[in-house]
């Protein structure tokens, strides 16, 4: 199969989803777009199962916290091994109640990626078979990758973040 291009992909997705996909951009050649949280499984399964584009491989799931916007973005990286292109899908969730449907219905590999995202960001993946913490201890009561938690112990006076970077 010939290498599909990002423009073809945008046309195809635009035809199918129209306004439900927005913020389309192409940083460093990697097609990036966002969708709403109730559409995410529909978009992912279209990307996966459409024979023309065939994004059969889930590369990664992770999240990013934007405290000024009060949002947590869940980021999916998909890869079409047939046509050799990647795509990035983002879903912005409100930080007070980050809930999104689980992608484990489409890929088994999503299981631990979502557990990791839950562990570090507190995103609740609905329909996940086993949503427990994975790297941190079960007794931890925070989600440490959220921006409000500092890296260093805040009580230390000799090590301030501004001296070491951010």
């Amino acid at each position, binding site marked *: 199969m010939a290498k599909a291009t990002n423009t073809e992909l945008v046309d195809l997705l635009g035809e199918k989803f129209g306004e439900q996909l927005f913020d389309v951009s192409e*940083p*460093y050649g*990697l097609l*990036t777009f966002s969708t709403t949280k109730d559409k995410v499984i529909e978009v992912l399964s279209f990307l996966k199962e459409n024979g023309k584009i065939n994004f*059969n*491989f*889930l*590369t*990664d799931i*992770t999240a*990013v*916290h934007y405290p000024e916007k009060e949002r947590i973005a869940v*980021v999916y*990286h998909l890869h079409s*091994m047939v046509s*050799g292109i*990647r795509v*990035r899908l983002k879903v912005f969730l409100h930080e007070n109640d980050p809930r999104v449907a689980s992608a484990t219905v489409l*890929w*088994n*590999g999503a*299981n*631990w*990626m979502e557990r*990791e995202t839950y562990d*570090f960001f507190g995103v609740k993946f609905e329909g996940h*078979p*086993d*949503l*427990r913490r*994975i*790297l*941190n*201890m079960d007794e931890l009561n925070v989600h*440490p*990758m959220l921006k409000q938690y500092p*890296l260093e112990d805040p009580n230390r006076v000799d090590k301030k*973040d501004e001296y*070491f*970077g*951010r």
Partner: protein
Amino acid sequence: MNNNQPVYTDNDPQDGLVTLNLGPTHPATHGVFQNVLQMDGERIVSGVSTIGYIHRAFEKIAEHRPFYQITPLTDRLNYCSSPINNMGWHMTVEKLLNIQIPKRVDYLRVIIMELSRIADHIICNTIIAQDTGATTTFLYLFQYREHIYEIFEEICGARLTTNIGRIGGLERDFNEVAFAKINKFLKEFPAALKEFESLLNRNRIFIDRTKGVAEVTAENALSYSWTGPLLRATGIDYDVRVSEPYSSYQDFDFEIPVGTSGDVFDRYLVRNEEMWQSVRIIEQAMEKLKSEPKGIFHADVPDFYLPGKEEVYNNMEALIYHFKIVMGEIDAPKAEVYHAVEGGNGELGFYLINDGGRSPYRLHFRRPSFINYQMYAKMSEGMLLSDAIINMSSLNIIAGELDA
């Protein structure tokens, strides 16, 4: 929600099952892995993997460190092939900054990366043999890992956690000794690998222990997002070096070995063949270096390439640049970038979001060991304990990469 919590004690004496804690520290797991298994005699009925014993919060630390201070963190992901991680990270930053790398630097990097791939595969394959009881092969081939580390030592001064290279190239050129050592390695290693193969490839005992053990179909491997030698052993020819060539891999002539059944024996064969291909790539790179202008070992990016120590101590400008680079004072574009390299275990991805601050806004490592390992407990169901041990060796899970 907590139905998969591991059961640490035998809570039902009537069910005939024995709870076995395999790990966290068990000599056969070669790292800190815990699997709580329910055993029916020698057979595993079910298992739960518990991971995170050496979690060091690299992603959180990376949000507070300038680019150069993140390189040592990547060393400690897959510490059996640190140079690949270092260069993957540097290439991610170069992609962010749109830096063009001279061909000679690319070839020097390819030599280092392929040497570390060989070191990584030597560890995995000799350990599979070791776990099946064949100590001889382990001792024969393992010394070549030492020779590779001596080459790294010559290039960057370190052996295991190398912190090799800079944004834009390498810290220094290969010296004569390094080239001599690489040539010596290229001359001697094929004979040793041949000997290693002739000891195992048609060895009845080894085949009986590995063939048909832990077979994985291609569909299942794709669904679990497997990459690297494990995916290739199931018959899918996916290799980042070919599908998205970085560091001039498109200039090289090599093959992607694939297996058929995805069992332990196929994984072993795929890794062996990859070592042969890596030798081929290094030979080609050495040949290509001859036609490149001598003495170029980094791109011309004074804003991000750390000046040499000699200059820093004697030249005011260099000192200022050194300070600015170390403190992350120089602006980088506000953008997000995903870059993947073919690590020893599969696709090692770096997802970097830069907001113009001193350190990344967010850095996520796509760690192949973490993603490859999640099938382990499921695969082990119905397997003999001794087979599960061999299966774990052949997955080549590196604790540092698993837990980040």
